[in-house]
């Protein structure tokens, strides 16, 4: 191959639920990777696909859409690229994926694609389903009607995959133009003619799209936008009603012939999907079933993930111990054993939960349940300024806010998406659990209320408090945040189908991967910075602290282990982070927190559960994984000023509420910044959650004291 070989791009396009992504997975397997379409947070899945020894193409999975008149940001991507022949992702060929049960509807987008003027290969999916039900579909006839090669494919059996290969090869080597479908009306013709020398297009329809979509297309400059707008106003160009007429015209184009061959369920009998939906989406049973499914989901992520999480934790902590005891003491072993390895552990320990969470969500999505959930709860969520799709984010937030916030991309209204992003971190995530369980020991006596353990009840109460504040905050934001455009539900509820393991595997791999790269990077970097700040201090201060520790130890006749723990604690107090902890003490004193807690608050920005480890170091417990030891030491701690215990009930409650509300998580801040593409929203989020935390901690501390 010469270095100048052009890489041909092939776009996979189709209606949502047409089996498009399954086809992409069948063709490319695990060799795909996910990027973003330029300038938007819309997933772009790409994979190299080898057609034969001489030809490798780049296959791009475009967002599902019903038409080139888009409803959401991801649908806009399709119109943005296809209307612009000089776009980097402008395809050389299109695979149009069709669901054989929705042929009529799919003709709309097909005729639009034909008018774009890119060669098209049509792939009809679900061959197995059509054959299983002994339904009749004349492929030859369909090819005649639409004038394109049609391949009938099954993602299950993969029959005819070679035909797809061959057809693609042909469409690239001998591109065949399509017949045009829609004739521009006279107003449309004259506006295209007026601007034709200012626009870059191959076909008239592309020019028309550029004019219809002028107000949001990214590649059009503002002077041209202004002129087009003026022209539309002056000539009374009715963009919206022209689009409607065009759509109706396109439906008419093939409809008669398609009606003749389209699959008709002559039986008129209830399908399996109907029967399932009679129960699953029932007005009373539906929510009950959803509640049970959620219980199972949380049961899975909290109890099944426990063992692998413990194994990971103890594995990493023994690795740290091993390094410290087998290598000479130097700044590097310190960085490795106390900075990098705990940092990595902090990322990896969440993987079992996130894996299970997305395994279950992926399965529910794949069989078709998730869109039913969206349908059932859309109106409820709308009362809180959100959307049915927000439910998936809020559920995921119970494990970790990072993947949860990334999952809001499917929400097509900006305001609803933003509110979901802003409130999701109020749902108690799994990193808060170690903090809660440690503090609840001080906050609540070990008694029973009825059959329930009082501490268990308080833990549940903290979760509910987070959830309640999520709803209150979203309700408030509904009135504050301005809306951009109307919001829609309009969702297709696909037929229930047996899940393809491969699709779920790819979904899970993608989500876990995204977590590791987004949160992982941040947690690791913050851990390393914190390690430096905790290991170094102003010159001399650390050495004096260490000497003091040795002196005290010899004076008190402490064991070697006790001495090294005391050393660590003294060093931390005089390190940069210790100084910072003392510096913020005045600010957190009204909440009942001293500088030691201040240090732990700062370090827990890496991930909340670091709070426990930091306290372990401060109270010179040594081993960080022994929660009981930490709480014993904390229980003994005396406030120098008052002579009272530092962790009385008031302080513990104050800290608990602080962690329920505060945005103590760098990764979340980073992901919000990425998804909203501005610093404005993460800052507002940090401030409002910080205010809630401060307010409630202050209240409870002063009330109990």
């Amino acid at each position, binding site marked *: 191959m010469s270095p100048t070989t052009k890489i041909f791009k092939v776009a996979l396009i189709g209606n949502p639920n047409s089996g498009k992504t399954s086809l992409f997975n069948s063709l490319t397997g695990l060799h795909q990777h996910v990027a973003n379409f330029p300038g938007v947070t819309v997933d772009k899945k790409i994979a190299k696909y080898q057609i034969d020894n001489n030809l490798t193409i780049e296959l791009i999975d475009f967002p599902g859409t*019903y*038409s080139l*008149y888009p*409803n959401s940001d991801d649908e806009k991507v399709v119109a943005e690229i296809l209307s612009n022949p000089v776009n980097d992702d402008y395809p050389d060929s299109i695979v149009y994926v069709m669901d054989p*049960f*929705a042929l*009529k*509807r799919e003709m*709309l987008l097909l005729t639009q694609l034909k008018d774009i003027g890119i060669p098209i290969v049509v792939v009809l999916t679900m061959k197995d389903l059509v054959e299983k039900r002994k339904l009749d579909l004349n492929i030859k006839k369909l090819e005649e009607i639409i004038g394109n090669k049609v391949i009938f494919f099954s993602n299950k059996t993969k029959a005819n995959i070679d035909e797809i290969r061959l057809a693609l090869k042909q469409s690239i080597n001998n591109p065949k133009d399509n017949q045009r479908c829609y004739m521009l009306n006279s107003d449309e013709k004259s506006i295209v003619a007026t601007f034709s020398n200012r626009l870059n297009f191959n076909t008239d329809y592309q020019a028309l799209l550029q004019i219809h979509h002028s107000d949001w297309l990214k590649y059009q400059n503002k002077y041209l936008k202004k002129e087009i707008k003026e022209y539309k106003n002056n000539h009374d160009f009715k963009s*919206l*009603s022209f*689009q*409607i007429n065009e*759509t*109706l015209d396109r*439906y008419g184009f093939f409809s008669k012939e398609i009606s003749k061959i389209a699959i008709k*369920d002559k039986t008129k009998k209830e*399908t399996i*999907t109907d029967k399932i*939906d009679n129960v699953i*989406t*029932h*007005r*009373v049973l*539906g*929510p009950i079933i959803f509640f049970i499914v959620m219980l199972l989901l949380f049961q899975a992520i909290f109890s099944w993930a426990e063992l692998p999480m413990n194994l990971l934790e103890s594995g990493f902590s023994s690795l740290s111990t091993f390094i410290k005891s087998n290598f000479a003491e130097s700044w590097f072993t310190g960085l490795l054993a106390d900075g990098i390895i705990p940092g990595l552990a902090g990322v990896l320990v969440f993987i079992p939960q996130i894996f299970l969470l997305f395994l279950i969500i992926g399965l529910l999505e794949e069989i078709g349940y998730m*869109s039913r959930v*969206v*349908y*059932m*709860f*859309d*109106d*409820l969520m*709308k009362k809180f300024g959100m959307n*049915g799709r927000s439910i998936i984010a809020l559920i995921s937030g119970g494990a970790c806010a990072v993947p949860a916030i990334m999952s809001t991309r499917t929400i097509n209204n900006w305001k609803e998406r933003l509110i979901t992003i802003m409130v999701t971190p109020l749902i108690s995530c799994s990193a808060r659990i170690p903090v809660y369980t440690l503090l609840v020991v001080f906050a609540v006596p070990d008694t029973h209320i009825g059959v329930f353990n009082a501490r268990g009840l308080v833990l549940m109460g903290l979760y509910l408090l987070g959830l309640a504040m999520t709803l209150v905050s979203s309700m408030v934001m509904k009135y504050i945040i301005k809306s951009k455009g*109307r919001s*829609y*539900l*309009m*969702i*297709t*509820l*696909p*037929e229930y189908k047996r899940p393809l393991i491969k699709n779920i595997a790819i979904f899970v791999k993608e989500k876990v991967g995204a977590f590791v790269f987004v949160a992982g990077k941040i947690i690791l970097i913050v851990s390393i910075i914190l390690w430096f700040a905790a290991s170094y201090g102003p010159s001399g201060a650390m050495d004096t602290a260490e000497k003091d520790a040795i002196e005290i130890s010899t004076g008190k006749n402490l064991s070697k282990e006790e001495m090294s723990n005391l050393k660590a604690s003294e060093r931390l107090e005089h390190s940069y982070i210790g100084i910072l902890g003392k510096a913020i003490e005045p600010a957190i004193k009204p909440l009942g927190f001293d500088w030691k807690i201040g240090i732990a608050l700062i370090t827990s920005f890496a991930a909340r559960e670091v709070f426990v480890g930091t306290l372990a170091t401060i109270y010179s417990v040594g081993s960080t994984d022994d929660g009981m030891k930490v709480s014993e030491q904390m229980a003994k701690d005396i406030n120098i000023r008052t002579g009272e215990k530092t962790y009385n009930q008031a302080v513990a409650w104050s800290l608990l509420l602080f962690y329920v509300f505060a945005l103590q998580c760098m990764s979340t801040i980073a992901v919000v910044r990425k998804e909203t593409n501005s610093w404005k929203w993460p800052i507002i989020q940090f401030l409002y959650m910080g205010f809630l935390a401060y307010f409630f901690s202050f209240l409870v501390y002063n009330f109990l004291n």
Partner: protein
Amino acid sequence: MKFEVGKSYKIKSFNDDEIAGKLLTLGFLPETTIFFTRKSPFGGAYYFDINGIKIALRKEEAEAIIAV
């Protein structure tokens, strides 16, 4: 217009251009028969069946449809 659960309707037109444009792309075409299967648990979303294809609309979206 208002719809009743369990009844079939034939679409005639729409009373909102913006919603109409979107409903058309989903297959809500004039002269098409739609069946109103059920309401959502809280009543704000409607479950329709168009020749075997299931689509959920918000109440306001559905009410932009004029049908007999």
